[in-house]
């Protein structure tokens, strides 16, 4: 390297080196910046999306409040509140019976025999890897066996490291089978030497939730002492309606899907709530609050808490109709603009981001209408009377307090003054499954998610001391690196779903914990694609995805945005300054995103930094030709409440056929419109129907309906292309 040695001392070479290094560091910083705001966008939208859940519950509560039992509208929805028709376990087992399900000769998937053996489970994993589906007969059988086992487990799993060397702890998997397979590949499958704790959220969002569940339950059956499951907030049948698991099961199991889901509804409630290792490390899905009481948690009947809907609270029902979801925020938007300029740090902020809460009639998961369960209790009472007459006794499903509730309800009283033990128990569970840590001291209720708390480092300190613990391991939040410490390294978040937002968005991780109780991390990104992408490409791809989602949000708030812009543009010039644009957009969308920084991606400004907002909207999106007849505000409402709407449709679709009748469709829309205080004429609803009913058979296909109203980017729509844009179109061609 003679030539190289002499180069080292040329000042020109050195100058060149320094120049390159400087430029490189700038490049890295800019990529990092883009990564950050992209992450910021996804997180903001994810949290905002969870608001939809609250809206859903509010809407359902509204229905319950405002319609008499006989009215048809409520019957559309009420069936989901019926808490597993009261009857004996034996009757349940008959209902879930698999014995009469035949498995055809041509079925080439695994044929399970029980008790399960390790090699059968290995075969099962292999089958899923090869994209085979397990026959519903075996699914039901496996689930039933799992149910039997789960029922005898305590609320809190106790694990010790002394018998085995290290315990592996996995966080959220969310139906991403690739990640689980990768973990097994890298770490080994569960066994006597390789014990595992799976910390909840096995299902929803990803497309292989049922396969993950089956694998986890199968391993639980063959290694009951070495596989431990914690319940996550997504192990909840109503949440599943909204986030995709229900859809997945019904899609994969057309004949027996409903039965499978019903069984899972019960099974989820039997999944333990937490795991403690060596009496020193607590593993729980969400976290804790300042009232978390492990002793109490160990005593409760966890299976009574099937869903995030909880037993009644002792308050008078909310007076009058509830204010529309959207107007909840509008009142405060102008007066609290400064609040929206706060940036989110990596740990969720606990401050009052959305303004004073007492002015809202906001409902959180904990605060559901008393009427809901009153109605449910009324029905239960009917059934109970029937059964008392028939001489059957009830097991498990009727807690003493429910009976008290029934009797007081029978006397038409809305006020229950006695302390309701269920209340406290329910809060305990919600806190465990839904809470997030925050940086500030204290404990605030988690308004963003609608359940659980934000808890601070002081709460952690106190909790650990009180229970003689040293570390809390939790999941529930996606982390860039797959894991993150907080609260002085006393709280550790572990998240195992890589590429959660988009390919390349984040790594997944799992923990190995030995007798020294010092966590070791293994990180990964389970996708063939990420290996081929450079950092810049992977950031670019995620960024495009985030911006696309953001543009969509802008579009669906067009009407509100224009009003907001007009506030700044009193002279009606059609122009608005950059600053005003950023402020207005932040206020209307309630998304804590760096709007100014993103402007080059979202808008084009004139030389004097003004934006022509009307033409901006025209460029932003185009409606599908079919739906041009549909009025703008209806379209916006549809987009904004899309997920709620879809969930409601699925609830209405009682036979899970994937279709609902015109009449039900019409009814649902009218309800939603009334609730949102929105005018929607019969004509408008007919327009909607006409634009979508391609079969002319008087039924609406839910999928088709939701698909037809997907936002389409003007740039991407070509002449003569099919109206329906496929969901997973690759994002490659955008510059």
């Amino acid at each position: 390297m003679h030539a190289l040695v002499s180069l080292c001392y040329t000042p020109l070479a050195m100058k060149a080196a320094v120049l390159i290094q400087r430029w490189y560091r700038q490049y890295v910083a800019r990529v990092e910046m883009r990564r950050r705001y992209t992450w910021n966008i996804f997180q903001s939208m994810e949290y905002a999306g969870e608001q939809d859940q609250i809206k859903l519950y509010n809407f359902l509560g509204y229905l319950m409040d405002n319609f008499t039992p006989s009215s048809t509208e409520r019957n559309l929805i009420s069936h989901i509140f019926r808490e597993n028709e009261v009857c004996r376990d034996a009757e349940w087992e008959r209902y879930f019976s698999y014995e009469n399900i035949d498995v055809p000769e041509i079925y080439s998937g695994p044929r399970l025999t029980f008790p399960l053996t390790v090699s059968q489970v290995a075969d099962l994993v292999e089958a899923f890897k090869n994209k085979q589906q397990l026959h519903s007969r075996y699914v039901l059988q496996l689930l039933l066996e799992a149910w039997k086992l789960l029922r005898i487990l305590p609320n809190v799993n106790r694990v010790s490291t002394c018998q085995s060397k290290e315990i592996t702890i996995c966080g959220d998997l969310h139906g991403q089978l690739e990640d689980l397979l990768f973990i097994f590949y890298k770490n080994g499958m569960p066994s006597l030497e390789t014990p595992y704790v799976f910390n909840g959220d096995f299902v929803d969002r990803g497309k292989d939730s049922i396969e993950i569940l089956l694998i986890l339950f199968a391993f639980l059956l063959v290694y009951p002492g070495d596989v431990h499951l914690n319940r996550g907030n997504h192990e909840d049948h109503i949440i599943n309606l909204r986030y995709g698991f229900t859809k997945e099961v019904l899609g994969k199991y057309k004949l027996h899907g409903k039965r499978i889901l019903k069984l899972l509804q019960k099974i989820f409630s039997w999944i333990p709530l937490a795991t403690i290792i060596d009496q020193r490390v607590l593993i729980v899905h969400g976290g804790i609050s300042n009232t978390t009481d492990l002793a109490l948690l160990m005593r409760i009947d966890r299976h009574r808490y099937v869903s995030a809907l909880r037993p009644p609270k002792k308050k008078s029902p909310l007076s009058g109709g509830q204010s529309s979801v959207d107007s909840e925020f509008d009142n405060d938007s102008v007066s609290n603009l400064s609040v929206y300029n706060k940036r989110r740090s990596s740990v969720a902020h606990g401050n009052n981001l959305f303004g004073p809460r007492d002015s809202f009639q906001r409902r959180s998961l904990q605060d559901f209408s008393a009427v809901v369960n009153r109605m449910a209790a009324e029905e239960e009472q009917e059934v109970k009377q029937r059964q008392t007459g028939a001489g059957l006794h009830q097991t498990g499903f009727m807690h003493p307090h429910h009976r008290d509730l029934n009797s007081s309800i029978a006397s038409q009283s809305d006020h229950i003054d006695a302390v309701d033990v269920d209340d406290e128990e329910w809060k305990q569970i919600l806190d465990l499954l839904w809470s997030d840590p925050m940086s500030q001291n204290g404990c605030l209720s988690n308004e963003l998610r609608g359940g659980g708390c934000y808890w601070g480092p002081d709460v952690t300190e106190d909790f650990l001391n009180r229970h003689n613990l040293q570390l809390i391991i939790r999941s529930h939040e996606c982390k860039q690196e797959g894991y993150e410490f907080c609260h002085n390294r006393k709280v550790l978040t572990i998240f195992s779903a890589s590429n959660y937002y988009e390919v390349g968005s984040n790594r997944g991780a799992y923990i190995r914990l030995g007798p020294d109780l010092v966590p070791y991390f293994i990180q990964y990104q389970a996708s063939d694609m990420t290996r081929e992408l450079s950092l810049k490409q992977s950031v670019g791809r995620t960024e495009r995805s985030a911006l696309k989602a953001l543009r969509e949000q802008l579009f669906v708030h067009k009407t509100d945005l224009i009003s907001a812009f007009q506030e700044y543009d009193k002279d009606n010039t059609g122009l608005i300054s950059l600053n005003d644009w950023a402020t207005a957009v932040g206020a209307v969308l309630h998304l804590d995103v760096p709007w100014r920084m993103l402007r080059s991606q979202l808008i084009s400004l004139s030389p004097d930094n003004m934006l022509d907002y009307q033409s901006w909207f025209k460029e932003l999106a185009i409606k599908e030709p079919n739906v041009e007849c549909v009025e703008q505000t209806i379209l916006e409402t549809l987009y904004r409440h899309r997920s709620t709407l879809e969930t409601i449709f699925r609830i209405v679709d009682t036979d899970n056929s994937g279709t609902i009748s015109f009449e039900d469709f019409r009814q649902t829309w009218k309800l939603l419109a009334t609730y949102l205080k929105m005018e929607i004429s019969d004509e408008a609803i007919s327009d909607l129907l006409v634009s979508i009913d391609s079969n002319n058979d008087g039924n609406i296909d839910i999928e088709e309906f939701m698909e037809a109203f997907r936002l389409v980017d003007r740039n991407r729509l070509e002449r003569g292309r099919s109206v329906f844009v496929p969901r997973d179109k690759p994002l490659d061609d955008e510059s």
Partner: protein
Amino acid sequence: MAPKKKEKEEPKPAAPKPPEPEPPKEPEFDPKEVQIEFTAEQIEDFKDAFQLFDRTPTNEMKITYAQCGDLIRALGQNPTNAEIMHVLGKPKAEDMQSKMLDFDAFLPMHQHICKAKDRGSFEDFVEGLRVFDKEGNGTVMGAELRHVLATLGEKMKEEELEQLMAGQEDANGCINYEAFVKHIMAS
């Protein structure tokens, strides 16, 4: 943000110098001496970016010393590490993660960096790489470039080099440097 136009600099006389560039012999950085020439719009932009880097629990609009360089670079400048240390007042290594600065302290530092001459352009960058183009055919050896960048100037670490070179070398380990520069500058 586009870098300011560079001024052509005469190549220095070929006197042997040690590998490390000597730090410029400037007096200590005094923020009060800096005249802020940014427009109000620009300052708003900087605030936006500043907030994105702010990791304080209560969003106090503060960043660590260690982040200062990254932020300035993210805003489109490309100072050397030495220049960053200079505007930070030559802090000790342990201060980098613990000491904080707020936006008002940051602004003069950024202004100073922005005013500095000779920021380098596409042509400078290409010229810089041409130095290593022994055959004059528009390519440099990847291995050689790595070696130089790891040993000269403000040395780059293994991971940084990996990141820089990812996917840039052809089958023979050569890099077409004009394409390389375009790739880096196209962020």
